[in-house]
């Protein structure tokens, strides 16, 4: 049976705004069932099939209003959804500041718990090259994790892509000015102008990949819909 136009439009709009697929499926399923009940109600009242369809659509409400309300409901689910400024502008600097000392503290805590803290420290003091690899890996990982987290949050809470872009831009700016200096027995972490292009470009690349995947998903959905209509 062919899907009613209202339901197709609802599904298309939810996909377009970036609503997660599982959630879209749940919403569409429930609204379709409700529409079917309304149609049945109209048919039982003696209306013809077309009039019953119009009745069901008018009682269900306008698709745009529905999408807007679902968006609000999805955002209200957590503070990350309710406060986009906090999520996309305040969260990134905090995570960047906490990332390095946080991971270092976590590793040392774990090592001390296992009783290998002193051994690891001694080993690191001898193998400076290894220290460099670890330090830069930890530092670079922040520039992958934070933008990916922001894009995920934007999708999960159906925020406009501009918010994810703002967050990734902030991450990139942080990457532009933050500097790590590593010499024997001395690790420096601060701000200056000695750009590392990996940290500048990575947030943008992650944002680009995320947008590309979102667009591809919408296109894939549109293609599958056209194929269904042809059948």
């Amino acid at each position, binding site marked *: 049976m062919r899907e009613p136009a209202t339901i197709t439009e609802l599904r298309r709009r939810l996909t377009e705004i970036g609503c997660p697929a599982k959630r879209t499926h*749940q*919403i569409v*399923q*429930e*609204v379709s*069932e*409700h529409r*079917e*009940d*309304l149609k049945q109600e109209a048919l039982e009242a003696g209306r013809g099939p077309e009039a019953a369809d119009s009745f069901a659509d008018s*009682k*269900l*409400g*306008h698709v745009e*209003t*529905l999408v807007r*309300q*679902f968006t*609000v*409901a*999805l955002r*209200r*689910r957590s503070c990350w959804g309710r406060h986009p400024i906090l999520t996309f502008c305040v969260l990134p600097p905090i995570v960047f500041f906490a990332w390095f000392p946080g991971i270092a503290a976590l590793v040392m805590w774990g090592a001390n718990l296992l009783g290998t803290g002193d051994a690891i420290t001694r080993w690191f003091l001898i193998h400076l090259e290894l220290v460099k690899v670890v330090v830069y890996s930890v530092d670079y990982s922040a520039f992958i994790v934070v933008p990916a987290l922001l894009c995920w949050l934007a999708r999960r809470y159906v925020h406009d892509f501009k918010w994810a872009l703002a967050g990734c831009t902030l991450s990139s700016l942080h990457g532009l000015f933050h500097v790590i200096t590593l010499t024997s027995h001395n690790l420096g972490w601060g701000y200056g102008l000695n750009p590392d292009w990996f940290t500048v470009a990575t947030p943008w690349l992650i944002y680009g990949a995320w947008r590309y995947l979102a667009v591809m998903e919408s296109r894939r959905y549109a293609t599958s819909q056209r194929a269904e209509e042809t059948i």
Partner: protein
Amino acid sequence: MKKTNPSFLNGVPELLLLKLLSRREMYGYEIVKAIQTETKDIFTFGEGCIYPYLHYLEAEKLVSSRRQEVDGRSRNYYQLTGRGRKRLSALGAEWSRVAKGVAMVLGGQHA
């Protein structure tokens, strides 16, 4: 264009949904019909709008849902949780207090 309810009704849908679900578990269409029958169509809304509220209540763990097949049709039934019951009693008390205050002003009574 459909008339919408005034903004001071914020929080009322939540109260109505929790109250209806405190009686028995229901699915979306059933809830809408219950609201329409019991309020004698005082509230005007697009019926699909019930679902964002239900999903929000579910996310807040005030209601839970389960899929069930009845008469060959699969439906999503919602029921009140323990947390929902507490919320209902708090909201109900708050609503009674506010309604009493408004009635006093409209009725011209003085403390």
